[in-house]
């Protein structure tokens, strides 16, 4: 029945894990401020585009790559993937959020288990060779906890989706039932993206979403110390 990994999967992808939410709320906040995302329909568009055009090529792709590197016990590859994440995430807040989540995830799960791969990765983070991105840590632990890649990816997508729905409900704001209706309609897309991520060509990993990047950067600038001084 293969449920031996299910509790680990539920734990790893638990939206209430005390690491802070996997969120692109910064970009969303700018869109909401500008009135582009303002109701259930535009929220749905935002989330779908984020999943389909951004997360699939970026965070989800790295979950898969990190998972595969872990399966090959390839520490060097894991560190390189982590560096690639840092290199790709040009909006500072997004990059820092990804690292914050990842480091907290590692902190939580490392206390419970001992894996050489994670130890090497941790050392690389300590020596600032790697940063500790959430997607890398997620892929790594998914493999180490015997979660199949497909299930791990689906849970990753679900977690990302529910995080964005929660943010939309808060920021726009939307009714809880509207948020749930969006989430329900996303299920087929989450399935589809899971399949597509497993078959994604390496050269497409990291594809840029300029609109999202700009909105994230705008959010950051508005609140940055630069303008506060």
């Amino acid at each position: 029945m293969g449920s031996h990994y299910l509790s680990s999967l539920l734990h790893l992808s638990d939206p209430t894990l005390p690491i802070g939410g996997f969120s692109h709320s910064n970009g969303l906040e700018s869109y909401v401020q500008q009135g582009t995302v303002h109701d259930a329909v535009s929220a749905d568009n935002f989330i779908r585009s984020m999943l389909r055009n951004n997360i699939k090529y970026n965070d989800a792709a790295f979950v898969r790559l990190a998972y595969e590197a872990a399966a090959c016990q390839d520490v060097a590859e894991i560190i390189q993937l982590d560096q690639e994440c840092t290199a790709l995430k040009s909006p500072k807040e997004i990059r820092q959020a990804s690292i914050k989540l990842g480091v907290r995830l590692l902190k939580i799960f490392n206390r419970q288990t001992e894996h050489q791969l994670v130890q090497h990765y941790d050392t690389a983070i300590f020596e600032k060779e790697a940063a500790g991105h959430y997607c890398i840590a997620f892929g790594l632990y998914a493999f180490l906890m015997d979660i199949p890649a497909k299930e791990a990816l689906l849970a990753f997508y679900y977690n990302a989706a529910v995080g964005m729905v929660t943010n939309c409900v808060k920021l726009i704001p939307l009714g809880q039932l509207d948020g749930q209706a969006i989430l329900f309609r996303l299920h087929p897309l989450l399935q589809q993206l899971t399949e597509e991520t497993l078959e994604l060509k390496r050269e497409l990993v990291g594809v840029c979403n300029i609109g999202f990047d700009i909105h994230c950067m705008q959010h950051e600038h508005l609140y940055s110390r630069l303008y506060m001084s």
Partner: protein
Amino acid sequence: MISQLTIIAGFREEKSYLKDAYFTRPFRLANVGQYKTDEALYLMVMSSSPGLLDKDQYDISIKLEVSTRLQLQSQAYQRLYNMQTGATQKMMIALEAGSSFSYVPHPVVPHQNSKFKGHTVIYLQQNCELLLSEIITCGRKHSGEIFRFTSFQNLTEIYYEQKLVFKDNVLLQPQQAPPGTIGQWEGYTHQGTLVYLNTGERPAQVYLDKVQQLVKEENGVSFGLSEMAVNGFVLRILGNGGEQLFNCFKRVQEALWPNNLLLKANGPAKSKAPLLIQQV
């Protein structure tokens, strides 16, 4: 057709100079720094072809020796023509320690049915400075040819001493992913990205405020500016005119070029933030 361009910039007697150059058709190279008062090298890449045709392969290699300063310029918009197989461009830029490279090329105009794949790799050593930009248009907008190209992909990778520090993977397939979608071009017709990176010790942060002010003056654009994990920043912009974005990036380049953080490191002016603002 495979076309090659190789540039080696050297440094001698406190001046940068064109140490070696090799190019095949349609490339030509012009030294455009004769009226400049500084000691940097200014080169313009010229072409006898109006753009890339099907199966064209550009192969560009640029090397900056220790302490060299090179500003490269393009001659005109780079057009990508109707293609079956597609065209490619490889660009390899190596900066030795203490060198500066600045390149703000004209916008790329992908015509209907064009297919392009570019790959730019830059290697930096210690104490280097890099400014690089890219502007992509929707096509021949004035002829109403908007997002009719088949695909455009350009991958830019910057390494600092073996470690990947910046990666930008631009992929546009208008038929498959409508550029108007939220998160993509969002109704705009032009996108631009400018990267500034400095492997020296003086923080690039001093430029952020100035660049923000400069770009803010543009009308009808949407832009964002953010610090990189390494010492540098990324400027991304969406707009509706190639000329506007190009001129905007040129102004950023002009603001940064004379204030080379590397040179100033040994100069008399030690103050950081006001440095740029005073001079521009």
